[in-house]
C-alpha cells in the first residue's frame, strides 16, 4: 500500500519533470527559429572579428586628459545621482519586501518599481531636460531616478534574505515596525546593500545612454562618440581608464564589506 503510493508519487514527479523539459525545449526552439541564425556566415567571419579587435589597438593615449576630465564629470554626477537614488530606493524596497509589508501595500510599491524600470533612460532624460534644461543637473536627476529602478529591486532582495528568526524575535518582543527595520534588518542588510550601491555608482559612471541624451557628457558618452566617429583607438583609451575605475570600485567595495563584517 505504502510502496504503491511512493511509486505513484515517483511517476507523477517524473512525468511532471518530463513535461517541464518538453515545454522548455519547445520554447527554446520557437525562440531559435525566430532568430534565423545563419551558421555558415559565422565561420568565414573570423577574420572580420579579429580585424575589429585589431583596430581597437594600440590605444591612442593623446586623449588621456580628455578621458580624465570626462571621468571626473561623470564621477560627480554619479555620486549625487546614486546617492539620491539610493535614498529614494530604501522606502520603496522596504515597502516591496515580502517579509515586512502586507500584500496590498506591497503590490503598489512593486508596481511603482516596475514602472520606474519600464521608463527608458531617454524618456527620463527628456523629462528632466524640460525641468532643468540640458546639462549636468538633468543628468544627475535622470540618473537618480534610473538608479531607483535597480537599487529598489536589489535592496528588496537583500531585505528578503534576512534571517527570519531574528526578525521574529524582535517583533514578538514588541518592537515597532521601524524599530525592527533599524535594529533587526539594517545591520544584516548593510554589507550587501553597500555592495549593490557601489555597484550602481560604478554603473552610473559607465552609463552613456542616460547622460548622452541630456548632453551631460561624461566618459561613457565620449566613448560611444569615439566609436561612432570611427576613432577606435581613442575609445580604447577610454575603456582602459574605465576598467581601472571599475576595478578600483570593485576593490573598494569588497574591502569595505570586509571591514563591515569584521566590525
Amino acid at each position: 500500500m505504502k510502496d504503491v503510493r511512493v511509486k505513484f508519487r515517483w511517476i507523477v514527479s517524473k512525468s511532471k519533470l518530463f513535461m517541464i523539459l518538453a515545454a522548455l525545449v519547445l520554447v527554446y526552439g520557437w525562440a531559435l527559429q525566430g532568430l534565423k541564425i545563419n551558421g555558415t556566415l559565422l565561420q568565414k567571419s573570423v577574420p572580420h572579428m579579429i580585424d575589429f579587435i585589431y583596430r581597437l589597438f594600440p590605444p591612442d593615449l593623446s586623449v588621456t586628459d580628455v578621458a580624465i576630465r570626462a571621468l571626473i564629470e561623470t564621477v560627480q554626477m554619479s555620486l549625487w545621482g546614486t546617492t539620491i537614488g539610493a535614498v529614494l530606493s530604501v522606502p520603496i524596497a522596504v515597502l516591496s519586501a515580502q517579509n515586512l509589508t502586507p500584500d496590498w501595500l506591497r503590490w503598489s510599491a512593486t508596481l511603482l518599481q516596475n514602472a520606474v524600470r519600464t521608463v527608458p533612460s531617454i524618456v527620463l532624460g527628456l523629462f528632466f531636460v524640460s525641468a532643468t534644461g540640458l546639462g549636468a543637473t538633468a543628468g544627475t536627476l535622470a540618473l537618480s531616478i534610473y538608479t531607483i529602478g535597480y537599487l529598489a529591486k536589489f535592496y528588496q532582495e537583500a531585505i528578503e534574505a534576512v534571517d527570519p528568526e531574528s526578525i521574529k524575535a524582535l517583533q514578538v518582543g514588541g518592537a515597532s515596525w521601524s524599530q525592527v527595520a533599524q535594529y533587526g534588518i539594517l545591520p544584516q542588510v548593510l554589507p550587501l546593500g553597500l555592495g549593490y550601491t557601489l555597484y550602481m555608482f560604478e554603473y552610473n559612471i559607465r552609463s552613456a545612454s542616460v547622460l548622452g541624451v541630456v548632453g551631460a557628457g561624461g566618459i561613457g558618452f565620449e566613448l560611444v562618440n569615439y566609436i561612432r566617429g570611427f576613432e577606435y583607438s581613442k575609445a580604447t583609451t577610454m575603456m582602459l581608464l574605465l576598467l581601472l575605475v571599475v576595478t578600483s570600485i570593485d576593490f573598494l567595495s569588497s574591502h569595505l564589506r570586509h571591514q563591515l563584517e569584521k566590525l
Partner: protein
Amino acid sequence: STQPPTSSNPVAATQGQTASANSLNQLRVVFPSRSGATEVQTKANAIAALLSTELKMPVIAVIGDDTAAVEALKAEQAEVAFLSSRSALKAEQLAGSRLYLAEVRPDYSGGHTYRSVFVVRNDSPLQSKDDAKQNLEQLRGKKIAFTSPTSGSGFIFPVGDLVKQGLVENRDRVKEFFGEVTYGNNYAGALQAVLKGQAEVAAVSEYALKAPYITPAESQQLRILHAISGVPAHGVAIDDRVPADLRGRVMSALQKLNEPANNALLKDLYNSTELVSIDHTRHLAPMQNALKQAGMEP
C-alpha cells in the same frame, strides 16, 4: 497633435511672452551630438566663444541629442539649436522656433539639399527602371538595411516614396513589404550590410558612398538603384522668444563661421562648410511632405 504650428500650447505661449519681455541676458545654443561627432563640447565651446564676442553677451554651448534639443527649446531652456530638418519641424510645432540657416556641404548635390539613395551591389539582379514605381516594386520581399528609423535620407524619405507609390501603407507597416528589415544604426552599418551580402539593398544618403563611411574600393562594388532628391539639410533654429533684432545679430554672427578664419570651427564640428539663410517653410516642405506620406507626426 492637431494644433497649428506656431502657437504651441498655452503655457509655453504665455511664458514665452514674459521671458521675451524680460529680454534675454544670455544665449544658450544647443549642439546635438550627431553620429560621428566627437569631443563636441570642446568644439562647441569654441563656437560659443566666437558668438559671445560677436554678440557681446554670454553664450553658453550645451550638448544633447536632437530630441533633447527640441525639449530644451520648448521648456525655454535654450534659445538657439542646431537641428535636423525633422527636429526643426517639431521645434516649430512645440516651441515656435524656426529654422533660419541651413548647413551646406560640398558633397550635397543640391547645396543645402541632398539625395536619399537606395544602394545595391554591382552584381545585384535588381536593375534601375525609369518608372519610380516599377523601380521600387522590385524591392518587394527583399532584405533591406535602413540607416535608422529617425534618419531623413536613410528612412523617412525612402519610406515616404514607397508610400507615395502605393507600395507601403505607412512607416509602421514597412516590414510587410520587405522580406526583412534591419537598421544599420548609421550609414556605414547599412552599407556594410549590403557589402557583406547580409542585405540586398540599403537606404542611405548620397554622400555616404565614400570615406569615412566606406573605402573607395568598397564604393566600387556598389551602385545606386533609385534616388530621391530634395532632402533638406540640417540647420540652425532660433526660438521665437529671441526678438527679431537679436535674431538678426545671431544669424550674422553665425555666418561669421563662413569666413575662412573661422570656417575650421564649423567644419570640425559637423563637417559642413557654410551656413546659408533659408526660409523655414520652403526649406522644410519636402520633409513635411515625406513625413506626412510616411505617416509620421506632422
